[in-house]
């Protein structure tokens, strides 16, 4: 689905992460976030990398695993009303390219963050907790699962 074109896609959320240029834009946006944080004078390099990792993972959790439904009307009578964007991607098909890409990006960011924080223990705890929060909802076993009914409706 080419973004901005006329298309017959019932729910564009399912295919938007396959659009041309979106992976590159995503990586560049992470780079921009990092550069902006680096420009703040009193932040150390370790703090900047940890902040980049945390802010990226928080944003990913909110937009992919918390917000449900679609911001637009869909002609399928609201089938995706109770599904998060991650669950809507590729109509629930697991291990597609976009899903793999969005799984690998926080992991690479975690590796870089661990290196640049010199494997400090406090940064390790924070970054690992943040990574787990973003990796666990992506597991196929958790597709459509709402723990303790949180975020069910």
């Amino acid at each position, binding site marked *: 689905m080419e973004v901005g074109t006329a298309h017959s896609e019932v729910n564009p959320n399912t295919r938007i992460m396959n659009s041309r240029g979106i992976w590159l834009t995503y990586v560049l946006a992470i780079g921009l976030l990092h*550069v*902006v944080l*680096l*420009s*703040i*004078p009193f932040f150390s390099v370790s703090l900047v990398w940890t902040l980049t990792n945390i802010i990226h993972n928080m944003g990913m959790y909110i937009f992919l695993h918390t917000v449900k439904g679609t911001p637009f009307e869909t002609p399928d009578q609201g089938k995706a009303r109770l599904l998060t964007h991650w669950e809507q991607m590729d109509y629930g098909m697991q291990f597609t390219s976009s899903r793999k890409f969005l799984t690998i990006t926080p992991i690479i960011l975690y590796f870089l963050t661990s290196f640049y924080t010199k494997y400090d223990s406090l940064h390790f705890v924070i970054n690992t907790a943040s990574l787990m929060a973003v990796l666990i909802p992506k597991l196929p076993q958790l597709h459509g699962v709402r723990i303790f009914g949180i975020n069910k409706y």
Partner: protein
Amino acid sequence: MATFLRHALDKLCWLYYQYLLVTCCYVMEPWEQTLFNFIFISTIDMVFYTTYVFVSIHVYLATRFLLKLHFVDVIHIESRCSSCTS
């Protein structure tokens, strides 16, 4: 000359209008616009300043590393490097 200036001014006004729309400043109150512009312009200024100070030395070190020149002693770099302290 006058028409060229008028066209240039129209173009600038159109670009400012696009900026207001893209950043949602168009719907904000004047004080909200001021606050947002202050934070936005400050961030951009900080990014440009950091780029000016650090990009040259980073590019130089990366070039040296990639061309395997870091085994070579370079004598007069400190006088030209703006981010090095003596």
